[in-house]
């Protein structure tokens, strides 16, 4: 299940392992895309959902470093943290990712930058989670009204 345009985000839910792969191209060289991932001030401007405020409490984007941030909306804050396992400038970030509401769960994320030449970059992000159930819950999460709407439609269908 992927999209049509070459430029727009493409997404793949792998059928054999609990993995989500996202691909997107940018009109910027790898060095800038890398910087937007490693500079917490820049990161806070794009990473969190638009309705949430993102507060970065720790961000040491180096091999062996760690990070923590909070997303808040309507007075509710959710924390996320993880470790940077491998960071190679302009090329690769491998990190773990945990939602603090479910501290035993951990995803392994890999962000790879590919230089397309002419000042363009292809970003490929893979997130490997512990189980298909967790992956599918993740796919259907982070879109509160979407899920609610989904439930309602499903209820109507199954009614």
């Amino acid at each position, binding site marked *: 299940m992927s999209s049509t345009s070459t430029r727009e985000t493409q997404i793949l839910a792998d059928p054999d392992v609990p993995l989500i792969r996202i691909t*997107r191209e940018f009109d910027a060289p790898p060095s800038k895309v890398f910087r937007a991932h490693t500079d917490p001030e820049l990161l806070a401007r794009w990473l969190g959902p638009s309705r949430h405020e993102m507060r970065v409490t720790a961000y040491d984007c180096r091999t062996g470093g760690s990070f923590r941030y909070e997303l808040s909306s309507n007075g509710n804050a959710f924390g996320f943290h993880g470790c940077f396992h491998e960071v190679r400038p302009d090329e690769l970030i491998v990190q773990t990712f945990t939602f603090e509401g479910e501290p035993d769960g951990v995803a392994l994320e890999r962000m790879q930058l590919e230089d397309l030449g002419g000042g363009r970059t292809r970003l490929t992000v893979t997130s490997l989670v512990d189980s298909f159930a967790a992956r599918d819950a993740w796919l*259907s999460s982070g879109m509160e009204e979407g899920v609610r709407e*989904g439930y309602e439609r499903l209820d109507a269908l199954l009614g």
Partner: protein
Amino acid sequence: MAADPLSQVLSALADPTRRDMVARLAVADATVIELAQPYDVSLQAVSKHLKVLEEADLVSRRREAQRRPVHLEAEVFDLMTRWIERYRRQAEARYQRLDDVLGSIPDDVAPPTGAAK
């Protein structure tokens, strides 16, 4: 069934064989025997998978027909596709924000190597 419908659909689709069966049923209805052909498993095992899909209302079987072909309930399946599409659009919205951030980074500034302040 106590489990909520969403979880049922998600867990029914959590198995690779069942996902493969759903993918094949998206093309055309099929009998249990036809469905079993590509797999190295018993008809019984295939029937078990079908039962899970049926309980999640992802597939139905016509009672009257002799062959009882299995039919994909496309509406429920479309719902999953829409969730994935919504997730994709959310990622796209995030990366459009990143486009703006990238546009604001001056060309002549050397990027700091890795370490944040």
